[in-house]
């Protein structure tokens, strides 16, 4: 049995199997809470969260199960900046009815903070908007002050 399977078994012990809802898998370790915030799934849906789980592919990963709510591909794309490898499975009656990977959109609204202290977005109520300049490694450019950011400079709001 592989590590991944071991991990799945132990996961099932910890988190019950989902009948209807969505599973967000392959989140980078430590990003689950932020992903919940970015996705806005704080509306009362029952969530099960696994963090720092063993993963053969990623070493460690986070995972989120959302009960009785599915997500769209567009929604999952919102967390690509956080976890480019994230996957989404929508489940109905215990069966996967849709499987998709996160894709980085060309523009990222609101969720990233501009690290330029003189940027207008840090002084007035102007929602941030970043243009993706490069996917890998990720490089973003603020639409307002035009400052480019990459690596650790990219901070989510």
């Amino acid at each position, binding site marked *: 049995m592989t590590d991944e399977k071991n991990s799945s078994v132990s996961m099932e012990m910890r988190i019950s199997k989902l009948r209807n809802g969505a599973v967000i898998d392959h989140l980078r370790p430590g990003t689950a809470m932020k992903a919940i915030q970015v996705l806005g799934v704080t509306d009362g849906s029952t969530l099960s969260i696994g963090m720092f789980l063993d993963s053969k592919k990623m070493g460690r990963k986070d995972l989120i199960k959302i009960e009785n709510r599915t997500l769209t591909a567009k929604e999952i794309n919102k967390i690509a900046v956080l976890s480019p490898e994230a996957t989404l499975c929508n489940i109905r009656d215990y069966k996967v009815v849709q499987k998709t990977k996160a894709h980085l959109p060309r523009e990222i609204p609101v969720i990233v903070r501009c690290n*330029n202290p*003189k*940027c*207008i*977005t840090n*002084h*007035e*109520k*102007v929602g941030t908007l970043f243009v993706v300049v490069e996917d890998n490694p990720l490089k973003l450019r*603020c*639409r*307002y*002050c*035009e*400052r*480019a950011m990459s690596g650790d400079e990219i901070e989510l709001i």
Partner: protein
Amino acid sequence: MAANQDKYFRKFQGADVISIRDFSEQEILFVLDYASRFEAASAPVLQGKILATLFYEPSTRTRLSFESAMIGLGGSVMGFTDAAVSSAAKGESVRDTAKMIEGYADVMVIRHPLEGSARAAAEGAEIPVINGGDGANQHPTQTFLDLYTILKNKQTLRGLNVGFLGDLKYGRTVHSLAEALSHFDCRMYFIAPEMLRMPAHILSELDQHGITYSETENLYEVSRELDILYVTRIQKERFPDPLDYEKVKNVYILNEKLLEHVKSDLKILHPLPRVNEIDPALDAYPQAEYFQQSKNGVTVRKALLSLVLGVHL
């Protein structure tokens, strides 16, 4: 050309001028070509139009040349030159101010210390917004007039050897001009003290465009190669530590001696104001192009006002 011209007229009508990055090589060349019409001829094509000038920071050249351009084309100007007397002092956002101005004017130019402020203003207003400088970020009409001056003197923007001298770290004009010239395959020479070198992010963008450049602290090492020498003031107000400013403030002072080490058709540009980086004795030489460059600002701003208001010469 006529069909192309109509295409660009349509594109610019009602458009904002926020960043030189927003313009393609063809659009830049169109603006420069169109601006040449305003060199000799002038007509009151903007009669009845109002330009609002929102200057949250001091400015002499930019504000006055916009006013001169607008008045020269028959339009009127209103505005403020001090944030302390504007609604900003009461806490009004740039977006709200822009939205309000929309009801009073046909076009606005904004200078503001915060970077991205012009973009935010443009999102707030339906009328065209022109960026007159947003902090250390962009000053696109300065870049257009710099390019216009180079084109006018060299009849091309392509393949020139361009030197940038002075404060390359904080100077927004050099950043924007280098980015704009990267469309035209120019060879660039960056001449600055270690403390004021061109920022890595600008060099990285030039790398992406395949631009050849070199960095040196010694002007005389490269001066004979240059077709254009773009000089900037070392800006005291940008230095967090006054001691650092004292170390570099007089590091380059151009005087008549320079002329022995340059091509005879070199043109020296400077966005002005100068402090002491160019000896006034140089002003009389044909290489000194900076006052004409400043005058070109009116020509180029006339063209941009005409284009965004959709009333053509």
